[in-house]
């Protein structure tokens, strides 16, 4: 069975966001808008793109 590409991409994007949030909560990094905004935009864009490309027509 082939994995669902949209779920894979979205899962990895959300996982990346979660790890960044966890690192900031633990004080390992200092999350600022300059770093978070591009990451959030990339996650949203990749998720929308993956869902759009794999949508059954």
């Amino acid at each position, binding site marked *: *069975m082939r994995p*669902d590409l949209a*779920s*894979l991409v979205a899962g990895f994007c*959300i*996982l990346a*966001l979660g790890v960044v949030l*966890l690192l*900031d909560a633990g004080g390992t990094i200092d999350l600022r808008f300059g770093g978070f905004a591009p990451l959030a935009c990339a*996650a949203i864009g990749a998720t929308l793109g993956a869902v759009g490309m794999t949508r059954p027509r």
Partner: protein
Amino acid sequence: MNETPTRQLPPEPAQPKRLYRARSDRVIGGVCAGLGRYFDVDPIIFRIGAVVLTFIGGAGLLAYLAALLLIPSEEDAGVATGETPAGRNRWLVVLGVIVLLCVAWPFLVGGGLLVAGLLVPVAILVAAGVLVWWFVSGEGPAGDAGDVAKRAILGIGVLLVCGLISIGGAWAAAAGGETIVAVAVIVAAVVILAGAFLRPVRWLVLPALVLALSAGTVQAAGIDLEGGVGERDYRPASAADLQDRYELGIGQLVIDLRRTDLPPGDVPLDVHVGVGDVRVVVPDDVCVATDAHVRVGELRTFERSNDGVDVDLEDRPDAPADVTRLLVKANLGVGSLRIGHSAADLNLDHGNFDFGPPVPDELGRNTACAS
């Protein structure tokens, strides 16, 4: 040679040209493509017109929604052509006419701007509902008007749920639960990844993304509800009355040191505010050194100012030995910090902190420092 006489058949009566939402070449609901086909014009012209009208008062959006409800799609053409408009969702036709009248009303009557002010947000909400449901389920705005309306309602429901998740995530992150929210986001991501190989759980993508973005925004803004919510007005009598740290979650904080007996030398002042405005008022004979940071907002100290996103302001002037040097260390999430000698814009005696637009030279000059 016999020639069979041919009989001219009477021409069939021309079928009336009908307007349908196009099935192919559609971007959203096929309205512009259908109009282009009907008038034999490139549909891009209608698309540009709709976008332009959307930005000019929102009429394009309202008209598009009305057309989405009124014009049948090509999928239903077989059914629609055999029926009169009266037999096909009559109530929706009436609804569409009402929407069209509402679109025209503000432009015909000056007082109708109030109607436009109410309708445009509703139209945006309906459009957002359709788009959200399209994203979540993959069902675009096809089918008859009832289907479109049903999907819009479902989409608005998803939006409401996401709004609640967003508020909850933001509040939890601001109240000290950043770790819990981060772990919840990671767990959701693992479930989505596992579902990719077993059984896809795409419905979980949007809530997880909303939770991560709301918590991330709060963490990036450095918003911390520790310190409470409200207005705080501190007027210490002496340096001994100064707190080690002034904290406020959301609100307005005023530290008035004009009647404070401050000793010569360095006096630290540590300020942390999540969301709000901070005003520090100092006597004329006090030198102020500032090390301030605001994630989103404005910093103003005497003649210096800086605003925007991730803003720093560092000013460390020296002071003569017999002069008090106030070492202000401030950290704000979203808001503004002003440090100066004057409090002309603050009605402190009545507890009314008016943080209006800055007046030129209102903060005075940092003249007590060594030149």
